């Protein structure tokens, strides 16, 4: 059995107050392992994005614990938690959240700059990662000049440039057509996933289920099933 990257135990999360109070996560426990591409799937409102946020140190749970590489992340101070996200987690947001006023290379270099790397060195490093995602010739363009698929690849390059142990992808195919979406996730699986990295993907897109190692199904804040993916 490979080493667990993430261990979540009895995670509970509530939103709202009074009568509007709703439970988004109900006693969710999961393990995610290095070397696997783990999907979290389910209908809208099932709590998958909330779970992803709790696991990645973005949203504090109301109960339970989340251990990443042996450390309970929700016992860290806010500064340590920010450092944890900076050094351990790479994010690919659904809407990419690329900075339109920066060049593609500058966008990719942001995690390195946040890690206090020299600007020039960070751009050189970012350009190498743009080469990995096949966009080296777009390094000096602003993201708005790129197609949706290219922007997604830029977001992936930005997420992995800091060499995080865990890659979080939120609906990576939502803004892409079927072929492009499949190609992007295939690319990630072939080029980004390795036995020292764990990839968590939240998705609705059943066309990419075949690429998953495991699939966690959620409904109404509960984990309802764990299935082996197509590549398991």
């Amino acid at each position, binding site marked *: 059995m490979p080493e667990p990257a993430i261990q979540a135990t009895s995670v509970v999360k509530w939103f709202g107050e009074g009568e509007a109070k709703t439970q988004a996560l109900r006693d969710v426990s999961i393990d995610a392992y290095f070397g696997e591409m783990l999907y979290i799937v389910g209908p809208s409102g099932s709590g998958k*994005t*909330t779970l*992803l*946020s709790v696991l990645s140190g*973005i*949203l504090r749970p109301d109960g339970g614990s989340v251990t990443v590489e042996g450390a309970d992340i929700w016992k860290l101070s*806010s*500064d340590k938690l*920010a*450092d*944890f*996200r*900076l*050094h351990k*987690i790479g*994010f690919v*947001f*659904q*809407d990419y*959240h690329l*900075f339109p*006023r*920066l060049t593609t290379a*500058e966008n990719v270099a*942001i*995690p390195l*700059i*946040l890690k*206090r*790397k*020299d*600007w020039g060195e*960070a751009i050189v490093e970012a350009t190498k990662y743009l080469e990995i995602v096949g966009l080296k010739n777009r390094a000096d363009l602003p993201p708005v000049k790129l197609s949706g698929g290219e922007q997604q690849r830029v977001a992936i390059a930005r997420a992995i440039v800091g060499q995080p142990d865990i890659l979080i992808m*939120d609906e990576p195919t939502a803004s892409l057509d079927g072929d492009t979406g499949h190609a992007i996730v295939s690319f990630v699986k072939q080029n980004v996933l390795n036995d020292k990295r764990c990839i968590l993907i939240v998705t609705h897109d059943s066309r990419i289920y075949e690429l998953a190692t495991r699939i966690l199904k959620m409904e109404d804040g509960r984990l309802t099933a764990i299935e082996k993916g197509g590549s398991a």
Partner: protein
Amino acid sequence: MNGILKLAYKLLVNDKAKFTALLVGITFAVFLMIQMLAMFAGVLNRASATVFNLGASMWIMDPAVQTVANTIGMPDYVLDAARSIQGVSYAVPVYSGGALVKLSDGTYQSVTVVGLDDTSLFGRPQLLQGKIEDIYGENGFIVIKDPEFPKLGNPSVGTEFQLNDHRGVIVGIGTVTSSGLFGVPTLYTTYNRALQYIPNPRFTISYVLVEPKSPADVSNIKREVQALGYMALTKDEFVSKITSFYEFQTGIGMNILIMTIMSFVVGLSISGQTFYTFVLENLEKFGALKAMGTKSRELIVMILFQASFTALTGYGLGIGLCALMITLARLRLPDYAAIITYWNLGLAFVMVVIIAGISSYFGVRKVLRIEPFDIFRG
């Protein structure tokens, strides 16, 4: 931290429309603030021109005098009494008054006549042409070459004019530190000739200029003069009195203050709103940075840097624009009074810092409230 500041800089300046709007707002606010303050400083400086130009350490005057131009004649015994006060090194009379001269072409021109002590010529101007001793010659006057000089027809040494049907001759052309406020040329002559040429009331001494033997004697001189029923002020006190008069008793100060506050409010409104909009438009990006591991204090530093950079750039441009406007104005109006002082620059700087502080305060509040989870939730 340099990389984060460079990131903040690029996010700011690469948004050219917003950055331009921010700069224009702050530049014009600074321009208006400094222009208002420069005009006021210019007026105050000109209002005290005679005090600066004559250069006496102490001035004895009637207590009712408000400005150096509004003289009230004092009897001769005040001069004698001043000379007898312990601690006075020397004391000389000076005359300052307005007159009308008739130029060679038959036109009339108002002038200020300064009559210097016949013996010492204390407070005499620096001469550009002519010899100072010629002032003792028959009908001798020295004209000051300042922006008002052309109003006398650009006279040269030897030019003649009439003053109350007395013949006057320009025997020298001089220069002084500061031009007067009222836009009239200045003629220097001896005290006695000034009294002779210009009709005067019973008491003729405008001021007694005093040099104390030491700074410690100033208080005693003041006390002795006060006992005579007159007032002795140091040079700085007299300038301060004149400044207070223009600030609080003429309406000029209040009007300038209102205009300066309005400029500040306009600058704050434009810059504050534009900067807040800039932050709002980038809010999701700040949230994304937060999710990626940027600490709150780093985001605060980024926003403060952006606000400060914009404010300081606008401050520099505003000063430059103001200096340019004053220079251009002086090409057409040589007597344009505005001057930029360090005090003006300091006050405008404080106001710009306040604008930057308030603008960034609301942006910082907004950015600190954004939760990275909101980015995920979309």
